[in-house]
């Protein structure tokens, strides 16, 4: 039976992993935020992968920690990387303002039950990517600032 | 007053090359590369393939390949390069821009040559050469750049043919006071700068059967350098010199 497609609630949040090379930095490599390229679809992708923050239990800090743990367990996370957090409604609003009617859909995976996808994102729209980086994903969490749990690697 | 006359010399690459009479075996090359590694942390292996074709039609043709291994050693920022080749047997030291001046450049050669001699011992030198590749970048204020305003080396063609889009000049001359041969290549090249037209002046001055002892070898290289400067200054005009920002006395 096909799983029901679930759009994430507008009041919820998603987290995106951003490697060092796609962080916005100043001339001395101080991190300032995100580059638009942090939200670009790769050639083999049809959606932008994010974690659904409210999937996890606990207060906000606990949710963030749990989400980061999943990233660390399922992909190579660089020491100087970061995570962007955006509100679902804000992401959709920013996309709409740039002519894109996206859906943010819950799509759990075996190794990541919080996995979700931002779908119908235009490929390579430079203005939209900049808006996502500057306006939609408003919060930045440094990977180095999130403590490692025992056994979380 | 700095030792070089220009704040922004147009040198893109400076080279001192030594060619030897006898091939260098791979064990010797490895020894030199190992000895000099602290000075050139990056080591790349250069490979070439040589095919031998049988000319006797009665024998079955079986091309053979012989792999030749050399070393390209470099500094992390790639401005210091040392090439060691077994065939033709040679040691070639290169400095990319920014050019640090003759004292530093020649000092590095003396240092590397000393390491070479300690590792390899004496091998007869068949040629010593000094090569400077200069690129002159001329801002295009007008659509046409008249090379003769900046250079004294250019082809002369009838006016009816109009401005040249491209050219290449290659000459060989004998410099009698140092008994060396000058090979000069000059051409229009694609400019790396927007709104500029660029010309290369590539000067190679070399001597076959040079001195074999270090004192005379160093003296020759220094005299080649003086000749090279004379040649370069003869190839450019004052308008070109202004581009390199001469140090004011």
């Amino acid at each position, binding site marked *: 039976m096909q799983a029901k497609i679930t759009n994430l609630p507008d009041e919820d949040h998603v987290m995106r992993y951003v*490697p*060092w*090379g*796609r962080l*916005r*930095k*100043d*001339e001395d490599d*101080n*991190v*300032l*935020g995100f*580059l638009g*390229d942090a939200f*670009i679809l790769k050639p083999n992708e049809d959606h932008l992968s994010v974690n659904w923050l409210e999937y996890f239990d606990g207060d906000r800090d606990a949710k963030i920690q749990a989400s980061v743990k999943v990233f660390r367990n399922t992909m190579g996370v*660089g*020491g100087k990387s970061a995570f962007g957090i955006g509100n679902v409604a804000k992401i959709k609003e920013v996309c709409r303002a740039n002519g894109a009617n996206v859906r943010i859909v819950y799509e759990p995976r075996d190794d990541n039950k919080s996995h979700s996808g931002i779908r119908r994102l235009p490929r390579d729209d*430079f*203005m939209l990517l*900049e*808006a996502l980086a*500057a306006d939609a994903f408003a919060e*930045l969490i440094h990977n180095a600032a999130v403590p490692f749990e025992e056994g979380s690697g | 007053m700095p030792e070089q006359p220009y704040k*922004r010399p147009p040198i*893109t*690459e400076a*080279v001192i090359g030594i060619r030897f009479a006898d091939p260098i075996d791979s064990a010797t090359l490895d020894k030199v590369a190992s000895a000099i590694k602290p000075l050139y942390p990056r080591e790349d*292996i*250069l*490979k070439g393939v040589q095919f031998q074709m049988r000319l006797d039609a009665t024998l079955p043709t079986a091309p053979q390949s012989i792999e030749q291994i050399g070393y*390209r050693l470099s500094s992390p*920022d*790639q*401005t210091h*390069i*040392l090439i060691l080749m077994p065939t033709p047997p040679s040691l070639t*030291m*290169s400095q*990319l*821009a*920014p*050019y640090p001046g003759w004292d530093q450049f020649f000092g590095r050669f003396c240092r590397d040559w000393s390491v070479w001699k300690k590792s390899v011992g004496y091998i007869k030198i068949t040629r010593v050469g000094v*090569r400077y590749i200069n*690129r002159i*970048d001329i801002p295009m204020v007008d659509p046409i750049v008249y090379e*003769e305003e900046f250079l*004294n*080396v250019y*082809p*002369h*063609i009838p006016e009816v043919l109009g401005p040249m889009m491209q050219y290449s000049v*290659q*000459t*060989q*001359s004998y410099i*009698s006071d140092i008994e060396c041969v000058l090979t000069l290549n000059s051409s229009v090249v694609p400019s*790396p*700068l*927007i709104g500029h037209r660029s010309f290369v002046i590539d000067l190679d001055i070399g001597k076959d059967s040079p001195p074999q002892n270090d004192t005379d070898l160093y003296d020759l290289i220094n005299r080649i350098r003086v000749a090279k400067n004379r040649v370069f200054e*003869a190839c450019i005009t004052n308008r070109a010199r202004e581009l390199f920002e001469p140090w004011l006395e």
Partner: protein
Amino acid sequence: MAGVVVHPQMPTVLGPTVLPGVEAFGVEANEIARLIAKLRNEPSPASLRSTPRLAPNEQPLETRLFDALAAVKILTAQVAMHLDGEWRRKLFAQLDSLHDPEEWESGDEPVSQSSFATFLKAILSIRPERRPGLGLSHSGNLIAAWTTRRDRLTIEFLPNDRVRWVLGRYHDTEEEPARYAGHTHVSELVEGLSPHHPEHWFSDASKNHEPS
């Protein structure tokens, strides 16, 4: 022009030149070609590179990253006479940082020479007092970012002398920035940015941002 040799104009201090005489084509033309080839200088040491035995995706990561960095550092040397020494050193440090194997994203391409050549042309044309922060796209295009308070200018350097840029400026008490974008040949970058007062980002006086 076929069959005509132009005698070059040479300074007399260089002495007499020795050139082959030209009579006709065929055997003589081949001889000319051989003699001309003999005059041509050998490839310079900087242009000699090792030929990788493995395809790029088979090479160890550190080798791929180093080779890419070496190539763009050699490109930089070609214009080093036009760059401030300190500027160049810090640029190299930023490039090294971008290509740190510990931070490398699997599947990414290191900086492409073509993109970097576009970057150098742009930087030498703009001549910003402030160095940009650097990033790298998935496909190896270099990205330069200048940030002044909340205002952002981002330029991506594409192969073959193309650039695309986007900027956002907040005016007075506005909550949303005014955004503009362009996609041009690198020679048109300065003209494209000029209506937006790029000195707001490029001048040293504009250095005022808050690290996150």
